[in-house]
């Protein structure tokens, strides 16, 4: 699935696909909680007004720069032998 195809879906459908197929990258907790997922070749960042209850906004990106705030959470120990 391409990013623009995903963006055309309803929010409910996007959430359902992310739940089934998304790869969880990490969580940011500040004033609001944000979760980052990878789906195919793009990233989806969900910010909650109320965690897991009310979605405030969803941001889509094909740039790996969205990973930067989450890098410390990405496990790499399994890559090192």
């Amino acid at each position, binding site marked *: 699935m391409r990013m623009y195809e995903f963006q055309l879906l309803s929010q409910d459908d996007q959430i359902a696909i992310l*739940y089934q197929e998304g790869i969880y990258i990490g969580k940011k907790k500040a004033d609001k909680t944000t979760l980052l997922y990878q789906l195919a070749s793009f990233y989806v960042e969900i910010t909650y007004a109320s965690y*897991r209850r009310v979605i405030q906004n969803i941001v889509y990106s094909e740039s790996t720069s969205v990973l930067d705030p989450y890098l410390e959470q990405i496990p790499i120990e*399994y890559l090192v032998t």
Partner: protein
Amino acid sequence: MTLKNIIFYADDDTDDLELVQDAFARFTNNVEVVTAKDGVQALSYLQSLNIQTPTPCLIILDINMSILNGRDVLKKIKELPHLSTVPVVLFSTSSSTLDQEFAKKYDAGFVTKPLDVSQMEMITELFIDHCSDEIKRNIRRHLS
């Protein structure tokens, strides 16, 4: 008076604790959700259970707890004879294959945390599906 089925849930995220408690609210007639806020508290509670105290019918463990994670609690639970038949489910935001394989190795279930509260009804059913047939019937009886 019939004793309620106890579902034990350990998570260091208070939002997730509330979410699961709310999800089981519709089974309130025959389910009680007992919670712990970290792995140490969870293990302490589970180790303290004896023949006089009701045993949970299901144990749900968050994986990424800051004090003693869910994987380590699961390993310890498997060493406790009085909990040998109690189903355990690892519950995590990540759907990592490694975590799923770990759960399978220790004969536990694996359920991914929801992205939205609307998915909690489906997830609650997944939790109940891990219980024994008798408990499943008992929990769902009051809804039919």
